[in-house]
Structures are given as C-alpha cells and as structure tokens.
C-alpha cells in the first residue's frame, strides 16, 4: 500500500484523540495550521519554535546543554500519528537537536490531522530512513514508586498535541 493511502481517514481522528487522552497528553483540534499557531502564541507566548532558520541553527548540535536545560515550552511538528496508541513519529528533520523533545519542560507537537494511521503496522510503512527517530506517546512518565503514575520523570512534564 502506498503511503498516501495509509494517511488519512477522518474516522481515525476520534480514536487518535482518545488514545492521546489515555496516555496523558492534552489535545486540541483547530481548523488550519494558522489557527493552531495563533492559539499557541496566545496561550504560550514564551514557546520556542524552530521554524526560523536562525533559531534552528542556535539550537543545533553545538548548542550548550546548559542552555537547553533552561528551555520551558517548545513547539515541534510531528510527521504522523498512530490512532491505536496516540504515538507521534518525529525524526531528525523535526528538530535541530535530538535532545530537544526530552529536555524541554513542556512539548507542544503540531500534527496535520490528515496524517493519522490506524496502527503500528501502517506506521512502520510510513517511517523513512533517518539517523534518529522516535515515537512519542504522551509525556514522560514513571510508576516506579508503588505503581503511582507520575508525569515528568526525566523528560517533559506535559505534552500538548495540537491537531489542525
């Protein structure tokens, strides 16, 4: 099956949203990327986005870890989402530095709601060759103390997925 056939189906959106809630992510769906960007700049004015080439360079591999550690909220764009588990694929093309999705306190992932696949079977058909790639499903979490679920083990304490 071609990649275009897998990505789609409007009926996968509710399942994807439900899965995101299940894994502890916040989620909003707005009409169009512009509305999402407006929503973020209004609600998270301090949010850092890497769309601009200069900022991309600033936070690339040579950026100091101390500087990265001070990051509050960052915004990234995911490649596609998986309905069955709320996972979103991001790879080296989505961030200037592999540490970013983990070291920031809060991560906002933008995702085109037309890019949702049914399950991991379809997901791996959409994964491209890259040096590093990750499925992110919800914020960092642990239940190592008496099985109590706590968000923000090492990575982001919260994850907001903005669908457009």
């Amino acid at each position, binding site marked *: 099956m071609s990649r275009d056939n897998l990505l789609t189906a409007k009926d996968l959106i509710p399942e994807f949203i439900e*899965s995101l809630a*299940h*894994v502890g992510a916040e989620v909003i769906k707005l009409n169009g990327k512009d509305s999402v960007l407006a929503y973020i700049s209004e609600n998270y004015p301090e949010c850092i986005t890497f769309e601009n080439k200069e900022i991309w360079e600033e936070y690339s*591999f*040579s950026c100091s*870890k*101390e500087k990265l*550690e001070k990051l509050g909220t960052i915004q990234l764009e995911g490649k596609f989402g*998986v309905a*069955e*588990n*709320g*996972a979103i694929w991001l790879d080296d093309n989505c961030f200037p*530095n*592999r*540490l970013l*999705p*983990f*070291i920031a306190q809060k991560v906002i992932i933008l995702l085109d709601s037309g890019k949702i696949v049914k*399950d*991991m*079977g379809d*997901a*791996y*058909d959409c*994964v491209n*060759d*890259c*040096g*590093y*790639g*990750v*499925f*992110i*499903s*919800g*914020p*960092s*979490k*642990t*239940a*190592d*103390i*008496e*099985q*109590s679920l*706590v968000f*923000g*083990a*090492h*990575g*982001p304490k919260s994850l907001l997925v903005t669908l457009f």
Partner: protein
Amino acid sequence: MKGHSYKAGIFLKDESRADWHDKTLWMVRQKRDKAARSVADWEDLRERASSIKEQVLSNLDFYLSEFEQRAVENGVKVHRASNAQEFNEIVYKIITDNNAKLVVKSKSMLTEECGLNPYLEQRGLEVVDTDLGERIIQFRKEPPSHIVLPAIHLKKEEIGELFHEKLNTPKGMSDPVLLTSAARTHLREKFLSAGVAITGVNFAVAETGSVVVCTNEGNADMGVHAAPVQIHCMGIEKLVPQTRDLAVFTRLLARNATGQPITAYTSHYRKPRPGGQMHIVIVDNGRSDRLKSEVHRSSLKCIRCGACMNTCPVYRRSGGHSYGYLIPGPIGSILAPSYNIKKHTDLPFASSLCMSCSNVCPVKIEIHDQLYKWRQELSEKGAFSPVKGLVLKIAGFILSKSALYDFSGKVARVALKGLPRRMVYSKINVWGWERELPAVPQESFKKWYSKNSGKNNL
C-alpha cells in the same frame, strides 16, 4: 539450604506486605488483560512474534552479519563480546578512551547479567542508573526484584526515607510526585555532566543496522543525546529481520508489560549525531550454547516484558529477591539453570506448573514445559537429595501396584486419624511444614465410587 523456598518463607513472614505485593502485581496483570483484549488480532500477533523470533534464531549468523554490516555503514562502531569479561573490558575501554569519569545508564538486564556496574566502579568510574526504579535500588545496593518494575518490593515510605538520606529530601516526605521530582532534579544534573551514556536494546533491526529502545521516562534519550558518546548493549538474540517486524513487537511489548498501548518513547537509533560517537556491543555470554540446545533454545525468544512474573502465583507471593537470580519469576527460572545449574537447581521447582506464564507470554515460550523439562534434567543429573529420590522411588513402586496402593491408603487413613499431631507434622513431613494436610476421608474413592455408582464391578 538458602534456596527459593527458604527466602520465600522470609518474604511471607510479613503477611500484609506479601499481600500488598501480590495484589499490586495482580493489578498489573489485569491491566495487561484489558490492553490485550483491546487488540482484535492479539493471538495472531503473538503467533507472528513467535515465528519472527524463530526465524531469527534459525538464521542468527546471517542476521548478525547483516546487522553488523549495516551498522558499520551507518557510521556505528560495532563490537562483539563472547562473554561477560570481554563485554566489560570493551565498555571500559570505550569510556577510558574518551576520558569519561561519569557514566549514565538506562535499563539493561544485560549489563546486570555481566556485572558491568561493579566492574566499572572498581576502576574508579561513577555509574548512575537513571531509570527511577533502578536508581532507587542502586542507592539501596540491591538487585532489581522485577525486570520491568525494579523497585516493586518497596513501599513509598521506604523510598522517602532513602531519598532523605541520599538526596536530602525532607524527612517523612513520601508522596510519589514529590519523590519523583527530587529524583528528576538529581538525575538531570547527572545527564548533563556524563561523558558516556549506556543503554540496553529492546530490538535490533538487521536490515537497517538500527537499535530500538523503549522507555516511559525518557531516560535513555536524555542520556544518549546529552552525552558525547553513546553505547548500546545487546544480546545476540535481540535481532529482528526488518523494520516492519517492529510493528508486531511494539504492539505487544508495553501492552503485555504494563497494560499501556505503547511506551511513552520508542526510540530508533541508527546513526550517531554530527560530532557524536555511537557504539553497539553485541554480546553472546552463553546464548549460543543455549541456541544449540533443542530443548532450551526457545527461552532466547524472550522480549523481557515481565508478564510471566506478574501472573505467576509463586512470584507474586515470594517476591523477586527470593529467586537469587537477576531475572526472577518463571522466565528467570528457566534461564538461570542454563547459566549455573548447581547454584539454581531449586528454581525450576519454584512453580506450580499452572501454565499461566505460557498463556501470557507474547512470544509463546512454553515456559511451563521448560520448567518441567529442567526438572527432568536435574533429576537425571542427580540434583535431588537422596531422601527425595528414595521417596519418589517408593511412591512410584506403590502407585504401580494396585493392591499395595489400596493397602497403603487404608494404613494412611487409620494412621493420620489415630496418630498425635506432633507425629504427623514431624520434621520428616516436609509437605506439612507450611500447610495442613487435607481432612482424612472415611473411605477410599474407589470404595465410594463402587458404592455410589450402583455397580460392583470395580
């Protein structure tokens, strides 16, 4: 004898704690059931996972060379270690070549198996386990009691006390949110100053040369992307042929382990980042010997989800530490004897053979059958005490002679009723140490049946 049953006895002395342990793990098992039922083709997935692993084990040499070749093409330095000693030396050399003093490590049962931490620590390096549960037990200088939930044997108050001592948290603070936050601050400092990051490997893909690591905390990625040098350590059995095969395993692993649809992070490391160094160490350490064994090779299919522990009535009521092997529970009980048959003779007996482990295994290892086969092997090798051997011989003899069996039953019925309690429950009656014998029936089943069936033809 300080075997499993002895240590389980100690564990069971604290009844309320044993009960809590049992219930907590059963809750994990129930979450697993719910997650498994949410996938329509679950049984089909298990079947596919099992056959992919079979395929890999039957052609391991081919997949290993393919994997190594691809990884080298990706700019990764690949090392091979035939045993624990070689493995430790290789890792130590990479660390010292890079003048690192602090090493952060995410979960890896392989490094536990090879004793990497003590090896590095003896040589003056600081090794920090970064998974929260692993850090807790590292502070306590204890082995993990579960492969997925390493600190499941501890109460939050004990962890609060530990963090008060080690991380200077307020005395009496035992809220998991606050304790996790204290650990986060402490470990972030370590992540940022480490010279080398070590991870285990969940899956290694032959066709791409990449390794996949699954975590919920994000600790593998924090370590790997912050440190200048990354080392991934894998046993030879971690391979899958293609990227596509990962779909089967990522759908099974977290659901079966903790009931989550997938771990928070499923990271695919293929090439080092610009200016970084990526090493993969492939370890044998007894695995190819197990591969040669027709009987025991299927244990190499294990993906370390821990479901067999959560479901095992013996594990839940005896705790991970009672097994005396780094991997406890049913899977540990079939792995341990292949490493050290003398030391772990008792583990294949730490089971009721109820088959629950085999029923939940995502790669369909017939664990109960392996446990049984180990018992056979151990018995042939004369691992039992002569007393047990003699008792079993007598029992076998009696059971084979119908008249003798009837007679023994009569004797037992009379004796058990008539003898004083302290004689029936004497030291010789090992079975009666921890349990009551069933009430003695008035007559044998045979007699009862012939009376009640209305026919007298027995």
